[in-house]
Every structure is written in C-alpha cells, then in structure tokens.
C-alpha cells in the first residue's frame, strides 16, 4: 500500500513487519465486514441451503433466484397462490407477516424517535449549560438506559407495565423504546453543542430576539445535524430492539427483529437472509446519511475545512 510510506532507510526486518502488519489489518477488516456481506449473495440462493451451491460458484444463473424475496411477501398471506392482481397485493398489505411486522416496527420506531428526540434535545440544551445543577448525576441517570443490560430493563418494565396496564400496548412499547433511544440523542446533541459559541445567542438577544426566535434562528440550524443523527440512532435502536418487545408486547405485536428472532429459533429459512439483506442495505443508507451529517456539522462549526 502506498498510502503508508516506509522511510527509505527502513531495514529488511522493518519492511517484513510492515507488510505483515498491513496483512493482519486486512484480515481484521475482512473479519468485520465479511459476515455482513456474505448474506447478500446467499439470499439469492435457488436452493434452501445456507451455503454456496456448485451452481452459484460457477455463476450459473439457475443457481440464483428471487424466491426468498417472494417469500417475504407471501408468508402469512391467506391466498398466496392467487393471481397477482390488486387483490393479491391487498392481501400482501393486510396479511403478510413480514409486512405487518414492518408496519409495526415503523410505527413504533417513528413514534419513539419523535418522543426521544424532542425530550432529548431539550435536555441536551440544559445539560450543556454551565449552570446546570447536579449535572454529572443527572447525565449518569439519563445515559444509563444504554448501559443497563436490556434484560434488566425488560424485566423491570414487565413488572411495571403489568401493574399499570401498559403491558401489551403500543404506548408501552413506544415509551420503552424512547427511553432506550434517549442516551444516543443526548450524546450526539451534546457533542454538537461542545464549542457552541454562546455569544451568538447573546448577540441575538441583544438585538431583540425572543427566546423562541433565538432557538429557531440561531440554535436549531447549528445543532440540527446532531439532532438528526441522534434521531437516526434512536430510530435504529427502536427498529433493532427485541428483548423489551419479547417481554412487554402482545403476541400479535410482531416487529421485524421479533419476527427474525422467532424465525431463527423455530426453523431458520433462507427468507431470513433476504430480510437481512434488505436490512443491510438499509443500514448502508443510514450510515451514509449520518456520515454526511457529521461532515456538515463539522463544516458548520468550522472544525474541519471543506
């Protein structure tokens, strides 16, 4: 690799070590990424196996198919064999298990994200003020949902929700997921507020702006990248969460990760791989968005050129 240059006077031993080191790094990067990418080609397997068939290896088109993607739609339908007209699609929309799970995941994810982002952003503004009393303790409490093992949170919520009637309700799940997403919102928004120039808000106030105008015109544009990143983190946390759902949700309240969990525990079918592929593509999109936002935020705050 030419990007890490060795000095011209490096000894043979150093050269050998240098290239060994690069190979080791390459293998570790492979270890990180290969398990995630391997599911993508396997999800197009024409056979119900979890490994590459002879036909796939020889790149024979017969070895590949979209049958497992089709199965995402047909699994759980009342009449999967019917002609694929508008009625068939309505059947998909209303009855297919994965579609129902996706709808639940999206509803719960969006609602808990809005809750977590609104409360979390407000709190981050307070926490980043130097006058904030008991800052360390309160910060510790607010971040703890990220640290405390999910099984403990789920156990506590199970007892609490059974005694308050929130068990098996969407409100209960949304509140729980919002709590789990809040630490991410606080961390990302506080990070954008580090080095925030408070003289900007004072200048605006001096010029006669009301607190709401100051927030909308001065603070919000500067912290927006952090808020959006935090919101995405909160959404992904909810979208990926299964332990709390297993403990407090009703049997009908399936979400995508819960459906995957059930699928893996009962009888693992390659349909799981096609769902996994879609989720990997989804996370690539999210990662791209967050990276773009991070760079924009750094540019806005003048931390990095261009």
């Amino acid at each position, binding site marked *: 690799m030419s*990007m*890490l240059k060795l000095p011209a006077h490096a000894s043979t031993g*150093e050269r050998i*070590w240098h290239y060994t080191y690069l190979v080791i*790094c390459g293998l*570790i*990067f492979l*270890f*990180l*990424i290969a*398990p*995630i990418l*391997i*599911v993508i080609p*396997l999800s197009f397997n024409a056979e119900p196996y*979890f*490994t*590459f068939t002879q036909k796939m290896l020889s790149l024979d088109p017969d070895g590949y198919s979209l049958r497992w993607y089709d199965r995402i739609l047909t699994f759980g339908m009342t009449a999967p064999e019917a002609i694929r007209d508008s009625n068939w699609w309505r059947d998909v929309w209303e009855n297919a298990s994965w579609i129902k799970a996706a709808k639940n995941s999206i509803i719960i994810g969006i609602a808990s994200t809005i809750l977590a982002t609104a*409360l979390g952003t407000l*709190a981050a503004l*307070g*926490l980043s*003020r130097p*006058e*904030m009393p008991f800052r360390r303790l309160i910060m510790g*409490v*607010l971040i703890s949902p990220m*640290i*405390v*093992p*999910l*099984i*403990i*949170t789920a*156990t*506590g*919520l199970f*007892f*609490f929700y059974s005694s308050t009637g929130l068990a098996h309700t969407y409100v209960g799940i949304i509140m*729980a997921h*919002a*709590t789990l997403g*809040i630490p991410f919102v606080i*961390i990302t928004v506080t990070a954008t507020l580090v080095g925030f120039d408070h003289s900007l808000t004072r200048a605006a106030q001096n010029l006669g702006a009301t607190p709401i105008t100051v927030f909308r015109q001065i603070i919000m544009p500067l912290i927006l990248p952090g808020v959006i*990143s935090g919101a995405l983190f909160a959404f992904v946390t909810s*979208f*990926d969460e*299964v*332990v709390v759902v297993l403990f407090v949700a009703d049997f009908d309240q399936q979400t995508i*990760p819960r459906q*995957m*969990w059930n699928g*893996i525990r009962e009888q693992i079918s390659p349909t799981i*791989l096609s769902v*996994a592929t879609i*989720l990997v593509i989804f*996370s*690539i999109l999210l*990662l791209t968005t967050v990276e773009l936002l*991070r760079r924009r935020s750094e540019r806005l705050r003048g931390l990095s050129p261009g």
Partner: protein
Amino acid sequence: MSTVASDTSPSLPVDSGPITAADGTPLHVALQRATRKARIRAFLLVAPLLAFVILTFVAPIGQMLWRSVENDSFSANMPALTAWFKANEAVQPGAGLDSDGLPGEDAFAALAADLAGARENRTAGVVGTRVNYDLSGSRSLFTKSARRANRLEAPYKAALLDVDEDWGNPELWGVMRRSSSTYSAGFYLAALDMQYDAQGNVESVPDNRRIYVPLFVRTLWLSALISVLCLVLAYPIAHLLARLPLRYSNILMIFVLLPFWTSLLVRTTSWMVLMQSQGVVNDLLVAMGIVSDDGRIQMMYNQIGTLIAMTHILLPFMVLPLYSVMKTIPHDYVRAARSLGATPSTAFWKVYFPQTVPGIGAGVLLVFILAVGYYITPALVGGSSGQLISNLIAFHMQKSLNWSLAAALASLLLFGVILLYWLYDRLIGIDNMKFG
C-alpha cells in the same frame, strides 16, 4: 465611611457604598439571583426528560428490586396459617411443636381453613408454586389437598395426614414458615446458590446443584475474554486508521461503522449461517482440505459460537474509543524516540503504547459492560454451554415463572453493572462517549 488621609492607601471615591446593580440591589445579591435563575432555567430544560426517564426506567427497575425481596403469594393467600406462624414465632427450634416434631392441631386447623379458602379463590397453585421454589413436589401437594379441603373434618391433623403424609414432613413446615414472611432475602440466597438447612441456618447447596454462581463466573470470564479479543483485534486497525491520511481512513472506517449500524439480529444470523456445520466456513475448510467432510468443526451452539459472534458484534465499540485517542497522538514522538536510538519495539512500548492507555481503558470497560448483559446472541448461537446470566434471567421470567428469583438475579447483575458504570464515569467520563 470617613476618609482618613494616608499616603499609601489607594484613594477611594467618596460616598461609595457597596457596589450595586442598576436597580439598586447589591451586586452580589443580584448576581446570586441571576445565577439561581439560570440554574433553574437549565434544570427546567432537563426536567421533562428526567421525569420521563424516572417513570419509564428508574421506577420499573426500582419495582424490580422491590420484587426481589418481596413475595406475598403465601402470606396473602394463607392468612390463618401465616397468623399462626407469627403467633408461634420459633425462638428456638422446636417451639410450638408436638413431640413428633410437627405443629399441633391448631396449626393444622389453620392450614385446613386456608386450604378451603384457597380452593374457593383458586389460589392453591400460587401458594404451592411459592413453596415449590424451596421444596420441589409441593405444588401438587397443595393443589391436591385444596381439592379435598371442604371434605376435611376435625381432627384436622389426622385428616390432612390422611390426605397426604407429606404434611408430616418437618422440612415442609420449615419451608412454609419461611415462605409466610412477605419480605425475605431468600431469593438472593437462591441466586447465590445458598439455602436454609432444616435448622434455618444458611448453607451452600451441594456442588452438583450449583447453577448461578458458576454462571456468574462464566459470564464474567467470557466477557473478559471477549474484551481482550476485541482489544487485540481493534488495536492494529485503530492504529492504522489513525495513521492513514483522512481520505483513506474515511473509507476504511466504513468497515467499522457498517457493522455498528447493522441490526444485531442480522449480524447474529450471519454468524449462524457462517458457522453451521454445513455452512460457509466449514465448506471452505473442507474444500481446502484442512478438515475432512465428516470432521466438520462444531463452531456453533457452544461457547466458541458465543465468543466469536460477540467479539465481532462488540468490536466497533473497542475500535472507536481507541481510534479517537490514537488520532490525538502525534507521530513525532515515536519518530523522535527512533532517531534517539530506540528500537521499533522500545519506541512502541515505551513511547506510543502508554499514550493509548486511556483509549484501552475506555474500550475495554465499555465492551465488558455491554458483554456482561448480552442476551440475544448467546441465546441464538450459544447452545447450553454458551449461555450467560441474562439467559437464565429470561428463563426464570418466561419459563419457570419464578419472578422473584429472576428479579434477584437481575438485581445482582445490575449492581455489578452500576459499579462498572461508575468506574467508567470516574476514569473516562460519560461525556466523552462518542459514536462515529
């Protein structure tokens, strides 16, 4: 204030009282008031979230802690017998007992009355389950006796012993006495593999029945091993990422961040696909002739499975803190050491490595804290030897329905995690946690 002429004292303006704010209040008072206002304003911004988190997180966990010491399924459903136990509090072993080591007719009469009540309210199963935690086989004894409760007649002692001679077991009476108290540390004892003997003293359970302590030990040991593995794998790549020019490291960073953003279940599924005995890794090993077709390695449904999958899943949490520390270390130090005659390994161990220790501390602690509480991955790839303490908590919550024991186990885990979290905050500071 009278001005005394003096050569050395600085001249003060005449008639200057204490310094005041524009409205005439003394400045320090006005300042104090303004500071207090600012403090309240800052707190009010945080208050809604704090209230929310207390409601949805702190209170439920508090309730769980409460559950771990409180269980009224016996005392609430067996009031007469509970009252008898209270009235005949055993000061010494054998108090209130007949010569045969059993309580007298009055206790059996109370028991018969309670069983009749339990039959009425259909709570015999609840009571039986509670006693069954400590003495197996008791549940059926309670349900069976409750079914016949309205046919019981005095003398009740003889009648109940006639229904089932297990009522004549002194150990059962000892267990019932302990179950009759609403609050007890009994579930913590059980969670630490301890029990009461016949005399009511605490003792360890026999070696072959120890479950929880070995599982705690395994959880700690596997988490430590995973942390070390993560460190060994993360250190070289974090170093590379920190040294490379930004345009290259940004691209390689995707390899770290994509797993971080990918669903936990997707990553676990991927490992299941890879590690199956008919999976990609075994196929590759067979194709390369490293193992024979019938000698395929069992990589999943055991500790190896848990170890590999969790190391992969937690690796980004090690790379990111290491990277952010390494990025701030100027490479000039190592170069200076080399030019002063240090060998590459001396330059690394004496100059570079000590500067990365804060990153190592942050990463190892974070990975360890997260690993200790893992549930999903061990449940799916761990088999029976790769289960962690969380899996047993889930088992008691969902299968055995011994909620108090689950709460006690969860509380012990929680104390451990809080201790580590406190340590993390002391050493690194939770403000310094960053993603990406």
